[in-house]
């Protein structure tokens, strides 16, 4: 019942914060959000699962009982962790607390609602990463949208209403497409599955139990479902060309929301792609290797090129997230230990680093009230510590060795280059790798123009070093990034154990 406890604690904390007075809400939320961290770290210490939860591997902290029956198929309350979800749970809990702390300065209205929503979102995110039954997972998956909608809509920037509704409807359509695809697939399995539990479905699919359904033969159904789900999840990732909600949402969202959005919400998409498409239908994935790899490469390069053209620091980081997520897709399609494992690792690494970058931008924004590259220069002169961490974070984003980003990217590159799913994979990899040059280009340019050079700021605000509680989360994140970069095995071992079963060719493959 540990997982239920974890989620419940977050929910309760959310309720408590909702009714707490505004002036204490922030501190209270931060304090309460420490409980999930303790919980997840304890789970990590007790973690003993091996193999992939969907493919017959042992599942840690498992709970499983029937929730309801839908036309012959049981829906179970079925949660548990394996090497893929464990790191993401840890990431979620830690990032939430840091995001909450980073909100102390910028959020000055309706605090109790804000922090309540943050905790509510955490609870649902934990649900997404722990649920192993489709409907349970889907409930949390959709529920995440609600708090995000408010976070962007209420505390966002000038165009927040547009951004919020765009994010809301766009991702909702995506979920619906995915839902139809997946359900059709499940019914295609006929009597070989008795419930909505993902392991059962995954095994059946890989076991080639799929039959025809609704006028489609097995192959066509599988393909259609794969595409529908790929698009559905692709919006969340986001992949080009389904990415346009992201920059708007990021730019308008308040910093802590951006942190959660880039740090965890995007990972929901890649996580789902890994869990569903790439685990359940490896054969289709490998049949579609060229289009998928192309999408990955295009996402990487196109996102980076767009970032090059931006003037808004947040937009830069937003587009570079698109770019980084492209790497993840590339790693997933590689179907090698380092490819898929690296992709999973990169989810965590990018979660930390993008969080770091958004927070750093936010800290600068708190003092200058602008994010436009042109509006300031030489900030480092007045905000040395922040700038220093900003530089470190930027280099982490560029994939500087011994920082988490490099580990993730290198794993992916290595796995993708050595991949045997298609003869052209080395070329795709090399093409995608050029992203590391472009990313250096726009981040260095942005830093040169904002942080360095003679100090100039055309705003009436006094630019001074940020408060301790603004910088502390940055430092913590930076530390984590370095630790993970020096010792990726902290997560990479369990990730490999969970990933390798996917690669072993099942009956369906």
């Amino acid at each position, binding site marked *: 019942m540990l997982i239920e406890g974890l989620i419940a604690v977050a929910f309760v904390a959310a309720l408590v914060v909702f009714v707490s007075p505004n002036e204490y809400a922030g501190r209270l939320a931060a304090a309460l959000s420490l409980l999930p961290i303790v919980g997840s770290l304890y789970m990590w210490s007790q973690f003993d699962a091996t193999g992939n939860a969907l493919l017959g591997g042992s599942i840690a902290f498992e709970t499983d009982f029937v929730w309801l029956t839908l036309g012959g198929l049981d829906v179970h309350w079925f949660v548990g962790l394996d090497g893929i979800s464990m790191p993401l749970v840890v990431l979620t809990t830690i990032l939430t607390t840091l995001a909450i702390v980073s909100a102390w300065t910028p959020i000055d209205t309706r605090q109790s609602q804000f922090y309540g929503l943050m905790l509510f979102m955490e609870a649902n995110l934990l649900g997404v990463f722990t649920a192993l039954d489709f409907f349970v997972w889907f409930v949390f998956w959709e529920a995440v949208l609600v708090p995000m909608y408010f976070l962007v809509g209420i505390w966002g920037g000038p165009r927040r209403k547009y951004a919020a509704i*765009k994010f809301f*409807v*766009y991702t909702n359509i995506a979920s619906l497409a995915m839902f139809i695809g997946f359900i059709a697939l499940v019914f295609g399995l006929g009597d070989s599955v008795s419930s909505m539990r993902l392991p059962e479905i995954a095994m059946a699919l890989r076991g080639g139990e799929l039959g025809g359904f609704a006028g489609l033969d097995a192959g066509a159904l599988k393909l259609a479902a794969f595409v529908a789900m790929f698009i559905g999840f692709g919006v969340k990732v986001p992949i*080009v*060309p389904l*990415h*346009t*909600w992201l920059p708007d949402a990021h730019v308008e969202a308040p910093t802590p929301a951006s942190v959660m959005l880039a740090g965890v919400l995007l990972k929901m998409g890649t996580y789902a792609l890994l869990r569903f498409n790439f685990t359940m239908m490896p054969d289709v994935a490998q049949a579609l290797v060229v289009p998928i790899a192309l999408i990955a490469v295009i996402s990487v390069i*196109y996102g980076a*090129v*767009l970032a*090059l*053209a*931006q003037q808004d620091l947040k937009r830069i980081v937003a587009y570079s997230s698109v770019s980084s997520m492209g790497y993840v897709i590339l790693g997933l399609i590689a179907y*090698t*230990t*380092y490819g898929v494992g690296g992709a999973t690792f990169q989810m965590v690494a990018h979660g930390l680093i993008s969080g770091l970058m958004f927070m750093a931008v936010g800290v600068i924004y708190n003092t200058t009230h602008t994010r436009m590259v042109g509006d300031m220069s*030489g900030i480092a*002169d007045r905000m040395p510590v922040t700038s220093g961490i900003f530089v470190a974070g930027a*280099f982490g984003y*560029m994939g*500087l*060795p*011994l920082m988490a980003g*490099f*580990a993730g990217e*290198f*794993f992916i*590159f*290595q796995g993708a*280059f*050595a991949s045997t799913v298609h*003869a052209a994979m*080395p070329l795709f*990899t*090399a093409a995608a*790798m*050029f992203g*590391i*040059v472009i990313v*250096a*280009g726009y981040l*260095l*340019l942005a*830093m*040169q123009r904002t*942080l*360095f*050079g*003679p*100090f100039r700021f055309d705003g009436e605000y006094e630019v001074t070093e940020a408060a301790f509680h603004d910088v502390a989360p940055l430092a913590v994140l930076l530390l984590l990034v370095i630790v993970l970069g*020096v*010792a*990726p*095995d902290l997560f*990479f*071992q369990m990730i*490999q*154990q969970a990933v*390798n079963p996917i690669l072993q060719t099942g009956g369906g493959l």
Partner: protein
Amino acid sequence: MAGIFDFVPAIVLLPFVSFLVALAVGNRLPKGGAFAGIVATAGSFLLSVATFFTVSGGQTYNQTIYTWANGLDGAVTLTFGLLIDPLSAMMLVIVTLIATLVHVFSLGYMNDEGETGLPRYYAGLGLFTASMLGFVVADNLLMAFMFFELVGLCSYLLIGFWFREPGPPSAAKKAFLVTRFGDYFFLVGVVAVFATFGTAAFAGSESFPHLAEQALHGEHSVNTFGFEPRTWFTIVGLLVLGGVVGKSAQFPLHTWLPDAMEGPTPVSALIHAATMVAAGVYLVARMYGFYALSPTSLSIIALIGGFTALFAATMGVVKREIKQVLAYSTISQYGYMMLGLGGGGYIAATFHLMTHAFFKALLFLGAGSVIIAMHHNENMWEMGGLKDKMPVTYYTFLSGSLALAGIVPFAGFWSKDEVLYETLVHGLGGSPILLVAYAMGLLAVFFTGFYTFRMVLLTFHGEPRSQTARDPHGVHWNVKGPLVVLGILAATAGLVNMTPVAELTGLEIEFLHQWLGHGIEGLTSHHYVELLESQAGYHAAEIGPIVPGLVSLALALAGAGLAYFLYNDAEPTEHTDKLGGAKTVLYNNYYQDEYQVWLANSLVQPFSRGADKFDQGVVDGVVNGVSSVSLLSGNRVRRIQSGVVSNYAVLLTLGLTALILGFGLLGGWF
């Protein structure tokens, strides 16, 4: 037994600790953490020397010390390890020595000049040294790449040290970006090596050069992605070479280096002599066993080297700032090293790497001393007559210049001469392409001599041409000390490997040959020679070193003489106009920067803006279009509800009728 090798990690870690110390408590330490750095680097130096002697005792060390990523189920395992063989041992000594001297010198250059942000400065130096040392001792390509990148980071931090001015940050960005471009190819190369051999180790029976060798003999099969093995190895080698070209500032990625002069002069000394730029060449030497398998890549290396040597030397001829001259001389000298490596002169190149480290560090520190004296005015045309004011600087600088110009018996002569000699013999020995490279290298000797002595004369001779030059600012022991040490080394370092003399006298005095001749199986110069013979088809033609040596010496003297003739008067005048049209071209560095900046600004920027327009207009336009269309249609749909109940009745009837008719026709009711 706790051998010296157990302390090798300390060589790397000590400077790293000093980095942490300076970063954390630098403000509270005297001299902003300088002493921490000095102590650390000096400690590393002593340990390196100890290691050096242990290695000379015949011991070597090749040990994995840390598993970075442990691959399960047969996946590759990525590790860090130490590889101590004669090459790395020698490099350790060089790097630590120069790092120590630079630290000491910085006391004079930075502290005494009342710079701010010293903790940041010394932290940078510490990390820089640590990264370079980590690179030197790396036992596999991945680890090498990682520290290679960290070196790049440190160069960024130190070149951009004076971030409050507009210049340095831009230069730092350029340095990192250009080298990053090279490193992209390097990284692809690393990945390719892993994908091909499943390992990236430098040494041992499971090392990738060895496996490649076996693959060529057909003793071991590797995944060459459908290429013929030698072709694939060439491709991989050239990919890795991309990183080398970037870091060692070879054509066409050399443009960052002159700008890097924006950094503090001691940093320039460190970058040029011992760390960043040396890293590239060192990497080639480190995996020479791999390059030796591919004549194509060897000759490409040689050509790049030769061309860069000449190309940079010509640009050095017209520069006004003393540091600019040195910058181009660096590029040119590293060109020689590449030439040597490409020309089959592994020892020669290593030799030149060593000597150059000494005299280039010396020259930069000397220049630094001059700059202190000139109150940070670097323009040689406002100097002059300094030799009486600052004799120590003058004589040490002179020693460095003689070495740079390649005048016997100074260090530079022996090494450069051997580089050219090796290239020549192999060129004549059946690889004619090398002769082209040789020719360029030889021609560069003349220019080197010229710009070197132009620099010396303009700076120290003649009459002072400015107020500051008449009354220069004095310098302290912490400046002079390092100069003296390096001055002596610059004069004598060459004596360890006097090939021509050995040839004449038949004495066994080619210590470097012996030094690099032993060590780990497969990494010895002997093995490399065999490889060159058997794989690359390099054969040494039978000609003695004397004649070529005299030729290059003559050219060097000619160049120096011309410089003396032109600039050795009290009031030297600019003769650059004599160059005519060439002058502008040279001043503008053959428009290298221009076209690269053009690429960046006039090509990439508009392209990205276009992409942005496309994204906003088309991709996002579609999204917004869908929503507006559905809202519009919604607006139309609601108009049906006219509010007049009779219309409702009509529509209702029509709807029902339509249904009835439709089904009637469908079901054939009528």
